């Protein structure tokens, strides 16, 4: 068991870099949400980012996905800077995310939620749609095949025709992951995926995250409060506190780091 984990880490450490940030800083009206942040993510690794509330975890995701612009610093995805790019462009380069809580399209069906994302790689314009060209047919079929496969993987096939807003919460979370995967990302960012799940669902989520990495070869970053999930699924963990990186290492190293305890428990 321990040996298996070590092999994985060695593999991860030698695989190429996929995302690198340096000196990343973001302040909101003087309040520094993230300061001098640096991270290096390798292909196919599962990385956890933890920290108390307000430590800058979500800011980190928002900066990478272009929802907000950093005041300083660099973000390189596969060797190219993605700073200043619009979100939809960053997504098409291969970074997908889920949101805290969840942000589905409530008036669309479960299937349409995934299709809305799957059609990014198989686009049909308005003219193709009106004329129903041959290209329209093949691309729609491809997107539908992807959606079908993802719904199957998430165990949502039976719910395909229901409105997303009518799904139970746990299903909504999995649907959001399916939707993110439908954009065919190389880097998947999960923002508190275990929030609101019971312990059985959390255990299943650990399996699901591993399965996703193995099936799609994606790099996964998990931002989470749930320590059990983080410790179970992540190969490396970065700990943030008040916007700064205080520790990076394996779950074992992080667990035993006195700075991490201090950040969580306060000064003794």
């Amino acid at each position, binding site marked *: 068991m321990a040996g298996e984990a070590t092999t994985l880490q060695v593999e991860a450490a030698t695989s190429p870099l996929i995302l690198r940030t340096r000196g990343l800083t973001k302040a909101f009206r003087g309040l520094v949400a993230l300061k001098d942040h640096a991270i290096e993510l390798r292909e196919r690794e599962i990385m956890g980012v933890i920290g108390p509330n307000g430590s800058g975890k979500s800011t980190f995701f928002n900066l990478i996905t272009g929802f907000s612009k950093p005041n300083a610093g660099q973000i390189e995805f596969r060797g190219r800077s993605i700073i200043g790019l*619009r979100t*939809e462009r960053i*997504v098409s380069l291969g970074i*997908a995310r889920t949101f805290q809580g969840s942000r589905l*399209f*409530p008036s*669309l069906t479960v299937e349409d939620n995934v299709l809305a994302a799957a*059609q*990014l790689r198989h686009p049909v314009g308005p003219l193709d*749609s009106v004329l129903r060209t041959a290209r329209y047919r093949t691309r729609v079929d491809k997107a539908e095949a992807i959606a079908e496969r993802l719904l199957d993987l998430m165990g949502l096939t039976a719910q395909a025709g229901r409105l997303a807003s009518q799904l139970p919460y746990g299903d909504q979370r999995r649907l959001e992951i399916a939707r993110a995967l439908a954009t065919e990302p190389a880097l998947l960012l999960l923002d508190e995926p275990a929030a609101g799940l019971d312990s059985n669902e959390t255990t299943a989520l650990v399996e699901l995250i591993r399965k996703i990495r193995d099936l799609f070869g994606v790099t996964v970053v998990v931002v989470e409060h749930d320590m059990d999930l983080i410790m179970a699924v992540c190969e490396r963990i970065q700990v943030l506190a008040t916007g700064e990186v205080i520790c990076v290492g394996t779950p074992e190293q992080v667990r035993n780091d006195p700075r991490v305890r201090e950040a969580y428990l306060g000064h003794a």
Partner: protein
Amino acid sequence: MSGDWRIPLVLLAVCVLAAAVAYGAPHVLSDYFVRIILLIALNSILVLSLSLSNGFTGVFSLGHVGFIGAGAYVSGILSIPVQQKMALLPHLPSFLHWFSLPFLPATVVAGLFTAILAVIVGYPLMRLSGYFVSVATMGFLIIVNVVLINASDFTRGARTFTGVPLETTLPWVFAWLGVTLFVLARLVYSPFGRSMKAVRDDTIAASAVGIGVLRARLIAFVIGAFFSGVGGSLYAHYLGSFSPNTFYFAMMINLIAMLVLGGMESLTGALVGVVCVSILSELLRSVERGFTFAGITVPALFGASQIVLGFVFILIMIFRPKGIMGDRELTFGLAARSARARKRREEQNA
């Protein structure tokens, strides 16, 4: 191909029926009824053009009547016969004096003109959401009205614009309604339509799955504006004479009431809204003149129709806040997409 074999048959039957009504109605029905049918079809084009942005993309525009007005004037200026142009519009730039376009090309040019106008207006405005875009597009409507009143070389200003040939007949309106329905149905029920609805539901989630929010809104706005311009041209050739205030707040409120009552998120809902409001207001109008039924005489109550209509609007909004149809389509059990999905699922199970 996949799909239900009955659908082409039903569409064919609808087309034949529409053609029969278009060509037969003027011989069978009185002018009054022909006029009501024509106005229902014409308003359907306008309400459908509004549904694309307001209903399906979540950009609640109050400015579409500005496109209708612009389309009406552009088409009118292009199609007044050359002999009359000198007299009616003496200060028109000379290149517009030389020619006059037939009905169809004038209508297409009016649509293209309003589409280009929508690109220019929409590019800054489609960044706005919610109430902000409503107020901003209303600003556009006001600007169009002021321009129409003041560009008197082109529009005769606040005076009646007249001399437009009366060419809007039932076959023309039905044909354009068919084109509008065809284009919008294929757009709304396509991946592009799915992007529009995703943008309406949640702009942040939409961009997180790679949908260009501005692009989706702009395309919906521009295509809607094209059909508004076309509808404006049909209106111009129906009325013959009109003024800038024909295309102002009263028309906007009328169209929006029809859209909201019928169901903003449904194409057939838009049609249902137009038909219900039109028929109801005509019925009430004839009732308010007073009548005698079974020995009871009801005196004339002018204005009562407006009160009843307002009351009906309130009731519908209370009991069906998403309109009569909501987001459902009247398909009479002939939904192409669900049939295909069902088939696929059956294949999987087999």
